[in-house]
């Protein structure tokens, strides 16, 4: 046991720098996860908000989006790989994101699909569950629909929306090592390569780094919640996360 901890410490002192060091690989993981979550948010928040505001197609949209949750990320990566490679062949040189179609691109697709449902569901539910009296009063006073959405519904739903973002981001970071299976150079490399060469220290160190990054993500979003949620709404923060657990029936 003592040996193991000792070896682990040695590993951490010896493997931090360089192209295969854990700093670069952590950065790669952050890049991939952040991009997947951000693109998911850019798509899910506006559509969720609009559908929630007009109370349309919510149930079907949630069902469609939840396919992302039903499909295992592992499966999505495997399915995406041949497609991304084919696409990559047709992309002109010098477009860095796509590369060879290995690594980043299929990883991104899987993580994006994973990130989408919580953000969409929470945005939609959060907007819908804003007190109808408040919305009616706003409309009755002559606020245009866009303004009702922006200055009443979104701020009031913000605790729920940010909770959705947090859940997505943490899930994405925790799942990101899978991208190593399709040759992505993130923290997952240590785990996948570690298994290949049966290096337990390396596997353990990689897992530790992924776990640490997940916890950091969680902390980051708690901070964000404090900053973005209007102060008087923070008192009811605990209730805000509620719509996640319960099935969305509309």
């Amino acid at each position, binding site marked *: 046991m003592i040996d193991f901890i000792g070896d682990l410490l040695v590993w951490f002192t010896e493997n931090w720098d360089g192209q295969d060091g854990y700093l670069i690989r952590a950065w790669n993981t952050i890049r991939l996860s952040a991009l997947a979550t951000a693109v998911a948010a850019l798509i899910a928040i506006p559509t969720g908000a609009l559908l929630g505001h007009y109370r349309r197609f919510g149930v079907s949209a949630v069902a469609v989006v939840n396919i992302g949750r039903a499909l295992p990320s592992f499966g999505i990566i495997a399915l995406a790989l041949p497609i991304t490679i084919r696409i990559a062949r047709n992309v002109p040189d010098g477009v860095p994101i796509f590369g060879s179609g290995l690594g980043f691109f299929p990883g991104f697709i899987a993580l994006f699909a994973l990130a989408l449902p919580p953000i969409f569901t929470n945005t939609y539910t959060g907007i819908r569950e804003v007190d109808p009296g*408040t919305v009616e009063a706003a409309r009755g006073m002559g606020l*245009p629909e866009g303004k009702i959405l922006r200055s009443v519904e979104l701020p009031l739903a913000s605790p729920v929306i940010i909770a959705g973002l947090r859940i997505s981001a943490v899930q994405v970071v925790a799942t990101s090592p899978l991208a190593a299976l399709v040759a992505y150079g993130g923290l997952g490399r240590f785990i996948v390569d570690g298994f290949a060469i049966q290096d337990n220290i390396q596997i353990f160190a990689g897992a530790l780094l992924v776990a640490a990054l997940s916890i950091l993500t969680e902390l980051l979003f708690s901070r964000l919640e404090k900053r973005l949620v209007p102060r008087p709404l923070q008192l009811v923060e605990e209730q805000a996360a509620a719509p996640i657990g319960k099935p969305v029936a509309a």
Partner: protein
Amino acid sequence: MIRLDRVSKTFPGQTTPAVAELSFDIDEGEIVVLVGPSGCGKTTTLKMINRLVEATSGTISVAGTDITSVPAPVLRQGIGYVIQRIGLFPHRTIAENIATVPALLGWEKDRINQRVDELIVLVGLTPEMKTRYPAELSGGQQQRVGVARALAADPPVLLMDEPFGAVDPIVRGRLQEELLDLQRRVHKTIVFVTHDIDEAIKLGDRVAILNVGGILEQYASPAEILRSPANRFVEEFLGEDRSLKRLSLTPISDVDLVAGPIVEPTATRGDVEATMKEHGVDWVGVGTDGRLHGWVWGEDVTGTAGDLEPRPFSVRLSADRSLREALDSVVSSHTGVAIVDDGDRYLGMLSIEEISRHLIE
């Protein structure tokens, strides 16, 4: 000020209209109460005025302008709106809530601040509440903020949808008084929806009684409705205690008061007995120079009426109080009459017979 002309509303997927061919006018500066059982379309009618519900047919005009000739948000910015759920913005301070419409209209900051200060006082709140959030206020206070917010841009018309339905009866009574008091100062045209006939009678200059399906059964002043209900529906809706409701609407000054069995302090036993016999009572009031000191039992008088220490009348009412209050004092007093004075001078008295005669007339 507001005119509804054969307005109908049929909601999608329904065969019977919620409101059918409804027409009535509301004059400038009056409070009109729409009242009726649930399903009578009173809220639908109200919401058609600010187009939260679009009429299926017919026309509505406010201040002579067809409401469909302007975009709905613009129309609504010129009409105050107060609802039962209040709907304050929980993430905005009280001052920000009140400033909603002025900010929307692009008022200067100074003008908004000044207006908010004015309104806070007008609705009976204190200036230190400006920086609080709605959750920190009681229900009654929140509804006052709701009223202030609706009045912020000084709209000529105010729509109120059961605004006091969610507060307890004591606070409701106070808010009703405050609304009447406020109306004496701001002179808005107010359309008020309630299911409570007593509230309608208390607040309305005119009351529109609606039946299920948005049928206008009667549209008149509360006194007129109580005196002569248009039909059986109205009668039933007014309830068993219609006469008592009428009494609460009638001031004592509407009735001719009688002097009653009153003697001077110098009256002898004989004078007292004659007065008692004339009025058919066993007591007399003792007074002089237009003042009434109190009353004594006739059989107690031995020398003159002034020899005895007069018993005070338990209740004395001023002439602007209602007959309902007079009745209350009649049934709870030894003498069986209500004494009316202006605080100093004795005006006369009311017996239960006088009160019921007024009802029968």
